């Protein structure tokens, strides 16, 4: 089946099977490796991508469902240098192994676009679908709060 979509601003025309999962197609055919394979059932969030402005778990989306859509991964966020949020993640030692980082960066990016000055509860809620086993979340939450417009809640 034909799949035409945009990944980080680049258009792709691919031939995929009906059962192909978007996560696998992105990783194997569309040259982005930041969405990770962690559980393949939507529990861990490490395959998070942004599709048309909203985060989705790419392991739960069929590739053909992405036809005509616009996808952003963390590679796309970093073309012109790190975002302010990424800079805060860096200075705050927010990540350790880094495997969950691409998904969490996107989940937090979406939150800040939707709600520029989130509360601690907002941040926890936005990240609750992205599992991190290393950090205990606290340094991640603190960085997102700091990235909020006021950062003073």
């Amino acid at each position, binding site marked *: 089946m034909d799949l035409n979509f945009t990944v980080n601003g680049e258009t792709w025309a691919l031939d995929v099977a009906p059962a192909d999962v978007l996560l696998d197609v992105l990783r194997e055919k569309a040259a982005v490796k930041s969405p990770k394979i962690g559980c393949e059932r939507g529990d861990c969030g490490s395959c998070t991508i942004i599709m048309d402005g909203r985060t989705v778990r790419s392991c739960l989306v069929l590739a053909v469902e992405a036809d005509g859509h616009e996808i952003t991964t963390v590679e796309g966020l970093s073309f012109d240098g790190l975002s302010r949020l990424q800079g805060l993640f860096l200075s705050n030692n927010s990540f350790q192994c880094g495997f969950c980082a691409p998904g969490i960066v996107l989940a937090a990016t979406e939150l800040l676009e939707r709600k520029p000055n989130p509360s601690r509860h907002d941040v926890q809620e936005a990240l609750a679908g992205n599992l991190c086993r290393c950090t*205990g979340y606290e340094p991640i939450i603190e960085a997102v709060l700091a990235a909020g417009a006021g950062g003073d809640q």
Partner: protein
Amino acid sequence: MTATYPFEAESPTGDLATVGTPAVRVDGVEKISGAAQFVDDIDFGPGLLYAAIVESPHAYARIVSIDTAEAEQASGVVRIATGKDFPYKFGMYMEDRYIFAQDYVRFVGEQVAGVIARSHREAVRAAKLIKVEYDLLTPLLDPRSAVAEGADLIHPDLAAYTHVPWFFPEADTNIAHWRRIRKGDTEQAFADADLVLEDTYEVPRYAHCAIEPHVTVSRLDPAGRLTVWTASQSPHTQRHLFAQALAPLGFTHKDVRVITPYVGGGFGGKAGVSMEILGAAMATLVKGRPVKLRWTREQEFYNTYQRQGVVAELKVGVMNDGTITAVEHKLYWDAGAYVEYGANVVNAAGLSATGPYRVPNITNDSLCVYTNLPPGGPYRGFGYSEFHFGLESHMDRIAEAIGMDPVKFRKKNAIVEGDELAYGAHMNPSGLHEAIDKTAAAIGWGIEERSDNPNTVIGKGIALFWKAPAMPPNASSASFLKFNEDGSVNIAVSGMELGQGYLTVMAQIASEVLSVPVDKIRVETPDTDRNPYEWQTVASHVTWSSGLAVEKAALEARSKIFDVIHQVYGFEDDSLYLEDEAVRCKTDPSFSKPLRDFVIDGIQTDDGTWRGGPIVASGKFMPEFTNANSDPATGQGGHPNVHYTVGATGVVLEIDKATGRIWVRKAALAVDAGRAINPDLVKGQITGGLVQGLATVLFEDMRFDEGGRMMNPTFTDYKIPTAFDIPDEIIPIIVEVPQPDGPFGARGVGEHTMIAAAPVIANAVYHALGVRITSMPITQEKVAMSYLATTMSEGNQEE
């Protein structure tokens, strides 16, 4: 030319420039920009093949036959492997495991056959077509029944297995190793004690749950070189075990190459060798083609090392003044079907099961018991998390029984430098008392807090921890260091960056010695062909051990630099020092020679010839004061542990009396890092380890059915913490009492931060509700039911 040691700061102020500062982690940008490469992210081209494994559905059975005929004809199948292809044993500390099952399967999930196919989907489909006939046997799922008289033997040939000299298997039993400690006269001490408290504590199995599943890609090239890309904490140990196990196929160590890019979380689960050997072996059947094997999340739960369960029978004697006089700790470990790694967890726990206390009379028995559950193995804490649950619960109970404040009681008995350890060696310097005081202060110990909500109560708890690295006595680290034309530095080591910040810490240590800034030092993940030896990244030992190796390489490079300056300018070596990437001279303040001017090309002399050349150096560290030889009957005589890291954990929690729901309002953890090379990274370990530990006590729990099958191998059913499931406030406290032989005084802290999390909750629950729970996890349901039972029995008494 010898490197001076220890290194002393040589700047005019004597201050350290980099060590002790929160340098931004060197792998940070890669990780937040999507650039960091994990094994599964490497492209192997169209020749890549995929493997799928046929696993035993039975916990204990004899294999009658394996029929691969139909699978061989399935689309895409290239090759099928069974035990017949690889009748080879392997094992880390004890060779009790085969690559593929031979005649018996001993746990649900044990690998019986493997399919190599051209796509992942075809491999999985063909694996389902392999028919295995089994003759079922009755599994042993509980360690106490497995040690009972007349129990079936899971490994009848145990006595013939090869193992390290510090293991003591009991022939014709299911006890693979029995670590005994006998010190003083425990019986007499119990008879003389004012109070003896005895109880049994139960700890179930737990899963590491690194978010990256195990994955490995292996390729045997046509010239006979086997390369394995693997998500591993242990590249050199893997190479060693692959080379050993596959030696009958003609491999030597130089033919085997292990490459380990970033690892997406380890926690012990990616130490040693588990599924990786399947990929390595199968690749030998399809020469020239890379073969990828990736575990599913389900396999990640039931078919990698699990943290072993334990039943702990604990008896402690104490005098009315609070002096602990005797400890008897009997630990029955549910070690699983193969104990090649897990038996050393049992050993480590047995050596140290008194906890961080001065105890004159000790009887420790730590029994490694085979069961028909998945193989046990290393998990952050390495046995200490498990026995601390009972031990630190017990300490609170004893304090209460003799009417003493639990903090005061602990301080009275807390071990100090020079105290004799259970096996006769002596305790290293430590800041345990400081850690206790600071933790107690942070949670407002002794200050009663009342909830505004009539349905909830507030409780506080405190618990201590200690842990020594558990390693072979001669576990070593090595490093290579080279300068580049611009004065930047590359360091090759073989410790793994698991997220703890190892690469950054190594860069900081070299930076301190060489005066080269951290951002001009590149330290990368290992390749066993290029990087020098490291035993493994486990045991919280790499900051210490690999750090010493890097420090020594940097000192050697510095000596070589000074030697060049001496040859050309005549300054004595001891008048020279490094500052801001230049060589300076104490006797000639006007002298300054930038490193970039000569560390590759050397220095031209007056006659036009050149001196020096590329500055390269190496360093190694092996502890030379340890030995694992001891009397099997008493455990006395050796020096098995290098040193202990200690600390304390405290919590304030709020409990809903009706539902048992627990909110951790505040958690404080003080750990003695010796010297925090990078305080931010130490704080990261405190926060992360504490949350991981709290999860084991509050909700995580591996469940097995009566057939030995894990019932909850998904994140849906085995809950790990989300961003909501963390304390409202975490207070990290760094104590720094230097380790005399550590790099700048540092010792490891990675595992320690989760060790006391379970008992501290048990103690705080008791403080809040008067309910003592002696089995983990302390779930909401368990708290509510236990509290209900107390209130009902109190009600009955009143009637």
